């Protein structure tokens, strides 16, 4: 009987990817941050972003899937930029490389630097790309830990009221 249980558990777990961590932050207030943007300037705070839904995308130049989703995000950033705030947060990378990347591939919204990884830790980031969908009231409604495409982006935007 015990044995059947063990086998059953192992079976159930087969479909699961042990490398993806579910986020406990979904449904909780987004951790506050104050991060300097790429290229310099005053730090951007999470408080200043209240009032509009926020798409917070953790990415890096060395991350191939981030490049995959880059176009989708840029297009969305350009078209929805008025109603939804798109922001990138650079994860374990250098400013120079980010600037070169942006020059090469363009960017319709700013990216923020997180040099000591504190924001990444606060958001429970375990790899890139990871995108957080925060509603206008500052509550995280969804976390998507794969490269976004048009459909998945639209799906998740619905969760924050768009």
């Amino acid at each position, binding site marked *: 009987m015990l*044995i059947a249980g*063990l*086998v*059953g*558990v*192992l*079976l*159930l*777990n*087969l479909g*699961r*990817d*042990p*490398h993806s*961590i*579910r986020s406990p932050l979904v449904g909780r207030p987004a951790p506050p941050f104050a991060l300097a943007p790429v290229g310099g300037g005053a730090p951007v705070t999470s408080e200043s972003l209240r009032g509009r839904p926020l798409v917070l995308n953790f990415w890096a130049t*060395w991350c191939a899937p981030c490049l995959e989703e880059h176009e989708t995000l840029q297009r969305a950033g350009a078209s929805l930029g008025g109603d939804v705030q798109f922001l990138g947060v650079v994860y374990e990378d250098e400013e120079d490389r980010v600037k070169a990347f942006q020059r090469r591939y363009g960017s319709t919204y700013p990216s923020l630097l997180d040099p000591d990884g504190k924001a990444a830790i606060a958001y429970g980031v375990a790899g890139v790309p990871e995108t957080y969908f925060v509603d206008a009231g500052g509550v995280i409604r969804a976390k998507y830990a794969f490269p976004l495409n048009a459909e998945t982006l639209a799906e998740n935007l619905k969760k924050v009221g768009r």
Partner: protein
Amino acid sequence: MTAAAGRVLILLALLVSSAGAMAGFAAGARGSEAGWRLTRRLAYAFAALMAAANALMVWALLRRDFSVGYVAHVGSRSVPDWVAVVSLWSSLEGSILFWGLVLGVYVTAATRANRSRHPEYMPYAAATWLACGAFFSFLLAGPAQPFATVPHPPADGPGPNPLLQNHVLMIVHPPFLYLGYVGMTIPFGLASAALLRGRLGHDFIRPLRDWLMLPWIFLTCAITLGAWWAYEVLGWGGYWAWDPVENASFLPWLTATAALHSALLTERKGVLKGWTTTLVMATFLLTILGTFMTRSGVFNSVHSFTQSAIGPTILGFLALVLVWSVILLAARIDRFSPEGQLLGAASRDGMFLANNLLFVLFTFTVLVGTVFPLVVEAVQNVQMSVGRPYFDRMAVPIGIALLLLMGVGPALPWGRATPEQLKRALLPPIFGALLAAALGAMLGVRAPWTLVALGFGGYTAQVTLRELWRPVARRRAKGAGLGEALVESPRRSRRRTAAYVVHAGAALALVAIAVSSTMGTSKELQLREGQTATVGAYTLTFLKAEEVREPHRDALVARIGIMKGGRDLGVLTPRMNHYESQREPVGTPAVRTSLFEDLYLSVMNIDPAQGTLGLLAMVNPMVAWIWGAALVMALGGLAALWPGHRAAAAVAARVDPRVPAPSRVAAEG
């Protein structure tokens, strides 16, 4: 072409092993000599086919034949030939192919050794082995095909995992592991045969025990090599992290050790037949569980092969073997009639039972800890972890208890003893305990568990030495010289001597583990070129950082000058390796091993342009003793297995009246 040939070989192996299994079961049921002969031939054929398939794969790897699926997966033109050969077992499909080879070798050896013995058991045993062989052939033919044809062969491949190219230990660890793991199939077959037959005769216990001991030796070496590799390669300064795959190799070792002790009781007293059989079956089950854990992608671990369809298949096999074992045990265990009885708790018999209790408890605990996160996730949808702090907390008391038991057990006499006898047996080694603990305290040991471990270790050491000396003393009392006694006694009671040697090794290993875990120092240093720092008794000077280019990797090497007590000890070169296929660099620590401690240096960050170095420097005491102790255990096991002088001694006993038969039995005590 090569791929197709390989597939043919695998299919043939599948056919032959299935046929052999059926022939074996039929031959066993009918008691047919011809049927047994057929089964043997099929077994040898299976082994030959597996060997051929493996040889073909090695040839394809060496030739960089990228039309073969597995070679395209792990082959590379830019790695040396020895890496190409070693990649046979570096990835999933190849490792199953290698499993088949090792199984074939074992089945051949076990079949050949017993070809004219135990005729009522052997066909069943061989049938069971070949049924397992059939399963692995099926895996190779289906879900885990190494010989898939690549329609458009690439010009070059990615090469095996860089971690495997980092150190020579990686060449040795997997073969030993397979020799241990796969070897457990043999005693499983023997035990199944006994259950199918409905009896476990005294004559059959010996082969069961011997064929359990051989893989046990390999598994002991494999676990040690794995720990040593982790220590020398991974850079965090430890050797065991209770990673699920480490546990996978450890679990069958625990039950096999319990089974070896239980089998000794069965051999001596004819008791616990069913329990010994259960332990042997459990050992094999745990190896299959272990292979599932490693290959299914269900566990988050350093070792995991990638997820694939192989997971459900192995799980199916595990379920099948589980059902087979449970049914056989339930149906037939009553037929095992004991030929003796266990007497009393405060006796060596009782201590054997305590040994089994502790080992099984240890197995249970590690299994629960490893599997618990999966259960919680399945039931509650919460991801949680059971990590090193848990396992350490559980393992320490059990390990300490086992350390003491190795002393108390052999000190006690067989059968019921009077309080007077108990006192005489148990009190004197306390001297050894106090001596060892005092020595430790003098050398600076303050951690309570470590002092206890030293004390128990001293106790066990005294008992073991006393028991090793006992036959020598007896021989001298009868008039032999010291030299003659020292040589003759181990020869006469080889198994007994070997057992105590293994115990000595195990005790040493446990004490060394205790000391190395609690008595080390570690420092994180940030150094500029030319700067000096001290760790323990060592003075480290960061000489320079340099870049080294190798065909398969770029490395940043830190040259560190070492001084101790004014003496120059040379230069250590820990490095940070950048492999093309990996984002995070892989560090290789530098270890300077001396008799009592290791100086361990690991690069955390290094910048040749700026001349800065982040270095983790540790002094780890007694680590080399762990590896040495494990070697002692393996050698002891080998000595126990060595074809003994039993036959010669029996003849000698008849001829030489000075060697009465009963005292030989007593000497084996």
